[in-house]
């Protein structure tokens, strides 16, 4: 017998898509039965109360969670988000219901051994409810009490070789795409770079020293499967400099209809016979491809590496061999001053594990030095770039301006000339001027 009636939520149990309500109910039942015989460290009926409070929100059309309080583990300024309910008498199980962010492994690969260990810990010291995963990428453990926080951290760090993720004005837990682990498009090892930077900047991740949050995301190619260009303060997007590799035989096979275009992604409808002129050549944004006399040629110098032809014919075309990444900066969601897309800062840098990714870290650290010095409280990097200008970012990073930095040059002449750029400087003698120009 359920502790709270949930007639509204019950309506979300039907339909084909996995029902979180059914899942919460099975978890509530599991806790009540407690087959593992655990000495549950938070109330047995937390999931019942979670269902109850959510039902109340469905009735009221408003949340019943209060602002986070300041809770956490000793020495860290992030990783735990305090959460309290505003109806603690009605729902005592979730009166204190803090979130723990757990740093996820690259590519979100897991062994069942690890996941079971995590589940055991969370059944014992928390609600048994998670997010797999949070939007930034962490494993999110939803719901525990303050006395359990140090215990959870102690068990994770001692028995699971596992650390917390980021929250607050910190480096947030970096996230990557599947990359070279299982994707032929990846131009660099996203997981290796993501892991290396995550380890290098553990201090920045755990101890808030920034004006606001800062996100790193790693996409192996311009398809941007982790959406780095839209949401990371600094995104690392794989690219290449040389020629797209062409397998002429496979091109013929596509043209002849032996291989389905786009890896078979359009198989749900009859789109007719594959037409290389219309579907590849005609859609190339730079018009740098030709298919003549049964031969595909690409003027690679004019290619902007949009990936369309490679996506459309993955067995015939491959990314180049001279690979690296581009760095974009300043992406963010609308709060506060409107959404920003990442802007290109470094067109190309090699991804070199042998020198510890020094060239990439130099850019990261120069950007941080500037932002930490000039950024206002709660000002994202993108907002600082807008406020002070892209030129300031170039100065701070010592990067030379190139046409690739802009879509088009400015259409106003309001240039902030510096005195040293103007012959003779700005100090002038008004009397000398007046000799030639009467008042």
């Amino acid at each position, binding site marked *: 017998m359920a502790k709270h009636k949930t007639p*509204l939520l019950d309506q*979300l*149990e*039907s*339909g084909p*898509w*996995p*029902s979180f309500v059914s899942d919460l109910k099975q*978890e509530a039942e599991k806790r009540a039965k407690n087959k593992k015989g655990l*000495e549950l*460290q938070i109330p047995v009926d937390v*999931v019942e109360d979670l269902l109850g409070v959510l039902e109340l929100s*469905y009735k009221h059309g*408003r*949340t019943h969670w209060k602002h986070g309080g300041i809770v956490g583990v*000793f020495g860290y300024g992030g990783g735990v988000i305090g959460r309290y309910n505003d109806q603690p008498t009605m729902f005592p199980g979730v009166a204190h219901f803090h979130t723990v962010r757990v740093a996820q492994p*690259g590519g979100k*690969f897991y*062994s069942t051994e690890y*996941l*079971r260990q*995590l*589940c055991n810990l969370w059944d014992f010291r928390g609600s*048994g*409810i*998670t*997010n*797999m*995963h949070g939007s*930034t990428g962490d494993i999110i453990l939803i719901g525990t009490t303050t006395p359990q926080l*140090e*215990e959870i951290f102690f068990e994770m*760090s001692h028995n699971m070789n*596992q650390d917390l*993720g980021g929250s607050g004005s910190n480096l947030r837990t970096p996230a990557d795409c599947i990359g*070279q*682990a299982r*994707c*032929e498009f990846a131009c660099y090892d996203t*997981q290796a770079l993501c*892991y290396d930077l995550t380890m290098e900047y*553990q201090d920045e991740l755990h101890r808030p020293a920034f004006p606001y949050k800062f996100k790193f995301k790693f996409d192996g190619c311009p*398809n*941007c499967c982790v959406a780095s260009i839209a*949401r990371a303060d600094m995104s690392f997007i794989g690219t290449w400099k040389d020629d797209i590799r062409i397998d002429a035989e496979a091109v013929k096979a596509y043209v002849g209809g032996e291989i*389905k275009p*786009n*890896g078979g*992604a359009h*198989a*749900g409808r009859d789109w007719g016979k594959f037409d290389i002129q219309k579907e590849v050549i005609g*859609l190339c*944004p730079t018009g740098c491809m030709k298919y003549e006399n049964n031969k595909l040629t690409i003027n690679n110098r004019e290619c902007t590496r*949009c990936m369309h032809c490679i996506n459309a014919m993955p*067995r015939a075309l491959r990314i180049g061999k001279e690979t690296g990444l581009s760095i974009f900066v300043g992406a963010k*969601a*609308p709060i506060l*001053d409107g*959404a920003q*897309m990442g802007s290109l800062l470094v067109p190309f840098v090699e991804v070199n594990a042998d020198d510890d990714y020094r060239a990439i870290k130099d850019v990261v650290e120069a950007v941080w030095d500037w932002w930490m010095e000039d950024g206002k409280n709660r000002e994202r990097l993108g907002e600082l770039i807008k406020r002070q200008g892209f030129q300031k970012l170039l100065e701070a990073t010592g990067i030379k301006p190139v046409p690739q930095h802009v879509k088009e040059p400015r259409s106003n002449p309001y240039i902030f000339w510096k005195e040293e750029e103007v012959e003779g400087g700005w100090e002038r003698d008004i009397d000398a001027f007046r000799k030639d120009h009467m008042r």
Partner: protein
Amino acid sequence: MAFVSSGYNPDKPMENRISDIGPRKFDEFYPEVIKNNKGKWLYHEILEPGILVHVAESGDKIYTVRCGGARLMSTSLIEEICDIADKHCDGKLRFTTRNNIEFMVDSEDKIAPLKQDLQSRKFAGGSFKFPIGGTGAGITNIVHTQGWIHCHTPATDGSGPVKATMDVLFDDFQDMRLPAHLRVSLACCLNMCGAVHCSDIAILGYHRKPPLLDHEYLDKMCEIPLAIAACPTAAIKPAKVDFKGTELKSVAVNNSRCMFCGNCYTMCPSMPLADKEGDGIVIMAGGKVSNRISAPKFSKVVVAFIPNEPPRWPQTTTVIKNMVEAYAKNANKYERFGEWAERIGWERFFDICELEFTHHLIDDFRDPAYYTWRQTTQFKF
């Protein structure tokens, strides 16, 4: 319920402390085939909706079965996922950026039993635990935020509208009939803890009433200067108010300047915005993050407001379903939602999708607004 110590000593927090060890290293968790072929993949193919094969230079293949899942997930379900991976996948699995679960096997004959196992598992309420799909030119899982289950600033729920929407779009999760892939995302307020602002279709929670002022507690709970500074439109100013005969320090809000962003509430808990009638959903469309053919784009507001209608948000899901159908019917092969809208023109988009155009949809927020107005004689009637 007796307290059980992990070994942590609160009197000596630094004793035996381990910190700054980061996440587990990715390659500990790779399936064998991936370990052997990393960086040497040749190509991939979608064998059927939800099932992929990746082929390596060595000739090795890895078969992936992709399943949708609610990102709000219990340990019961995770343990079930582990049972499946132990049985079929040598104890390894992964999750995708969009909250799908991927089970990987190293030979084709292992697919059928895995598939059968996944399809046979249902929740007590009747829904699938592991629906297979989410590949190619179809609709994959919705990325979303917490909503009413665990957040203090939402203007709508997360898991509920997602469940309702995915039920309506379920056929396209298991099919690949669309012109290109279509990404739906949900953020329960404009903080947008996700990339909702660059989605083909975005469901966004939004407030429409200015903050309530809890004068009795405001100066005790909040730093008034921080609350004032938090307002992007300078709508908040310091004020002395009379509270039951006592003069208290508080704030006043110029309601006509409020754009309902909720940033004041983030800084000051005594300024709540949440309201049953005020809160609801904004529908945005036409964004993308990929650089394929055209540059990444922001989503545009196409419906200014739909009320919250728990538990199944019928108006929201109807608008979305209609937009998906219009796109499926009218867009060219490979054309993303936003590319289609731009090609036909947004004026035609509103026609075809039978959406009303209202003044709310014309940008009036600062300089970028000007660049969205029509400055050419070229438009369609």
